[in-house]
């Protein structure tokens, strides 16, 4: 068991994953989080849920303007339950250390839903806490930053979409998004606002640069533009519809999300998918990683005006996508993983196609890596640009691919190798330099490793009849969690079911939550024209964090 605390009783969620969950009172949360951090652990995700009994839902409705201090909520109405715990708002905190994943369910007071601020222990908690307030109206007591995050001006500050009694029509507004950016003052300092519509084929977000000459003094990010109410949408969906939706949280990571969702559902239903389905899932996940890394390596060339790199890598990527379409019926592999199994199969002929593709990619990528390595102009732009030191990365919780380029050796396929990765001995790619060059090197390393893994998976993929084990419906009052190392980093999905076994709360978590704040640090002291390059080297998801 990864955490020991006298007031915390953990139960193992599933055999497939070293994951535990337990209820804890808010007063012990600080202590437990400190213990995890001091032991080298990390915050994976933070979200809230509304399980108030029907009929007592109208309170609390305190409103809080961004930046101002909180107003005490009004007293509970007569006839409602006395101050009670257990059926009100809950906060869920997923933590990870070397022995596993722990989800803490923090039971909050129905009438006064506050919890201790975690952002001083885990700085990555800051935006998650602010988003949790915007969506649910539960907040961090004595927190330092009460600015809104996900909410712009589409709904009132006093109404919260993830509350069960949320009235979409009544809470609609068209107010402008007045967001208090941090201003840098001094002689010669000026601001460059960029976005939300960007100058390329990119997702929308706003970046406020404070610069002096060409040099960036500070970057302030404003996201939330692609918030499309995904979490609320899950509440009205069946398990199968949810599987489709979760594959569209971030289209470039559809396999990772679908697998994490399936893993969470299987953990609630206590179902183990057939081993052939698990091998196929791993094959799809590695193919997703290969396609994305190829695309990124091409764009990193393009962003330093080396269009040869873009042309070459995108020819390779297109060949992978076309093989996906031929073998699995979808270029990006959407909707191929469902709770209980997979919807695809791979005939012997398909195995041969993938083997040939992997051999071809090994040869071609090796040639291109040689060209990238020896191209002086390119290396000049890559080396030392967009630096995140290992110390800063550890402090702020940088994760995934970008984390591994700053010596943060976390990879769910290695530390928590669920089937079939427990039989694959994944070699993690890490580097210490933390600059754009390091993120390129880690991408090359992971690309070659994924090609090796695909071949290993194919040799293990025995032909057997798939037992039909697809899950129709989930048990009542369940909670499950799934975590998958996507190409960008660890993708987590948590599912809560209600008394009827329907989806009452689904929380997908993208590693971009942790990594966006580091981008603000990485650009400091770089020149503005290097921002697109640095941004691309992280390639974070907007949709995955805006939800």
């Amino acid at each position: 068991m990864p955490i020991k605390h006298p007031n915390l009783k953990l139960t193992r969620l599933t055999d497939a994953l070293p994951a535990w969950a337990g209820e804890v009172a808010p007063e012990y949360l600080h202590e437990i989080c400190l213990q995890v951090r001091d032991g080298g652990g990390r915050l994976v995700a933070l979200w809230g849920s509304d399980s108030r009994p029907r009929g007592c839902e109208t309170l609390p409705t305190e409103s809080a303007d961004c930046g101002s201090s909180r107003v005490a909520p009004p007293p509970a109405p007569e006839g409602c339950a006395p101050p009670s715990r257990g059926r009100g708002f809950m906060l869920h905190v997923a933590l990870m250390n070397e022995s596993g994943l722990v989800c803490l369910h923090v039971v909050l007071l129905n009438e006064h839903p506050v919890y201790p601020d975690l952002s001083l222990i885990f700085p990555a908690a800051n935006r998650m806490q602010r988003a949790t307030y915007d969506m649910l109206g539960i907040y961090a007591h004595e927190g330092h930053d009460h600015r809104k995050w996900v909410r712009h001006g589409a709904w009132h500050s006093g109404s919260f979409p993830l509350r069960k009694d949320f009235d979409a029509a009544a809470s609609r507004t068209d107010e402008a998004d007045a967001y208090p950016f941090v201003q840098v003052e001094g002689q010669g300092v000026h601001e460059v606002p960029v976005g939300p519509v960007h100058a390329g084929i990119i997702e929308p977000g706003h970046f406020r640069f404070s610069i002096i000459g060409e040099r960036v003094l500070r970057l302030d990010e404003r996201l939330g533009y692609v918030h499309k109410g995904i979490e609320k949408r899950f509440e009205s969906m069946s398990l199968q519809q949810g599987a489709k939706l979760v594959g569209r949280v971030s289209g470039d990571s559809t396999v990772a999300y679908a697998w994490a969702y399936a893993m969470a559902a299987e953990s609630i239903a206590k179902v183990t998918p057939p081993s052939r389905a698990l091998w196929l899932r791993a094959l799809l996940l590695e193919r997703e990683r290969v396609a994305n890394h190829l695309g990124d390596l091409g764009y990193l060339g393009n962003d330093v005006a080396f269009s040869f790199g873009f042309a070459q890598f995108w020819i390779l990527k297109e060949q992978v996508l076309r093989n996906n379409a031929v073998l699995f019926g979808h270029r990006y592999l959407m909707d191929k993983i469902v709770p209980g199994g997979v919807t695809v199969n791979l005939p012997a002929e398909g195995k041969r196609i993938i083997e040939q593709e992997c051999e071809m990619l090994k040869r071609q990528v090796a040639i291109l890596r040689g060209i990238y390595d020896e191209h002086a102009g390119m290396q000049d732009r890559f080396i030392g640009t967009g630096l995140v030191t290992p110390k800063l990365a550890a402090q702020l919780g940088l994760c995934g691919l970008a984390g591994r380029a700053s010596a943060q050796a976390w990879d769910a396929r290695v530390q928590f190798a669920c089937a079939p990765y427990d039989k694959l001995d994944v070699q993690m790619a890490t580097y210490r330099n933390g600059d754009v060059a390091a993120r390129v090197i880690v991408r090359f390393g992971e690309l070659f490793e994924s090609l090796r893994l695909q071949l290993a998976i194919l040799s293990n993929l025995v032909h057997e009849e798939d037992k039909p084990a697809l899950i129709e419906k989930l048990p009542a009052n369940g909670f499950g969690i799934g975590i998958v190392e996507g190409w960008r980093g660890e993708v987590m999905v948590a599912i809560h079911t209600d008394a009827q076994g329907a989806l009452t709360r689904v929380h997908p978590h993208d590693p971009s939550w942790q990594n966006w704040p580091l981008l603000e640090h990485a650009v400091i002291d770089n020149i503005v024209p290097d921002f697109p390059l640095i941004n691309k080297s992280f390639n974070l998801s907007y949709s995955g964090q805006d939800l």
Partner: protein
Amino acid sequence: MYPILKQIFKTGIKTETPPQADESMRLTEQRLQQEILDAFGGALAIRMVDAGSCNGCELEIHAVNNAYYNIEGLGIKFVASPRHADLLLVTGPVSRHMEIALKRTYDATPEPKLVVAIGDCACDGGIFGESYATCGKVSNVIPVDVVVSGCPPTPVAILQGILTAISAGRNVAQE
């Protein structure tokens, strides 16, 4: 330099024949005159706006730029500002938070202009639908000429949508 040239020659030309226009993709009748279309057809500038997509459609719009589809070879290129654009390529169910930005981008694009909505979400709201956070399909927010369905639509379908928008409204495919 030698390894780069060698790789270029070994790779050869990958570009494939572009698709024909498809009138079934057209949402509103062709609004532009033949002379303008002839000029557009020669060199079209596209401004791409993600108004709330999951990033899936963007992947395929990137792919349209690769050597196989080679959109620039047709004289069509993506530009950095709506003020330089003839055509807006819009993806996503329009999120409420992108509604104003999309309207402003449309207003900033000089007349005559065209709009092509890319993907199921842009055509009808898709899996996200209309909600407290989304306005649904793109034509709920700005006028749309051509819609391209698919989740995400293939690069060929995207090319076909763009070519339909700049064709004169005749069904070229049936001729």
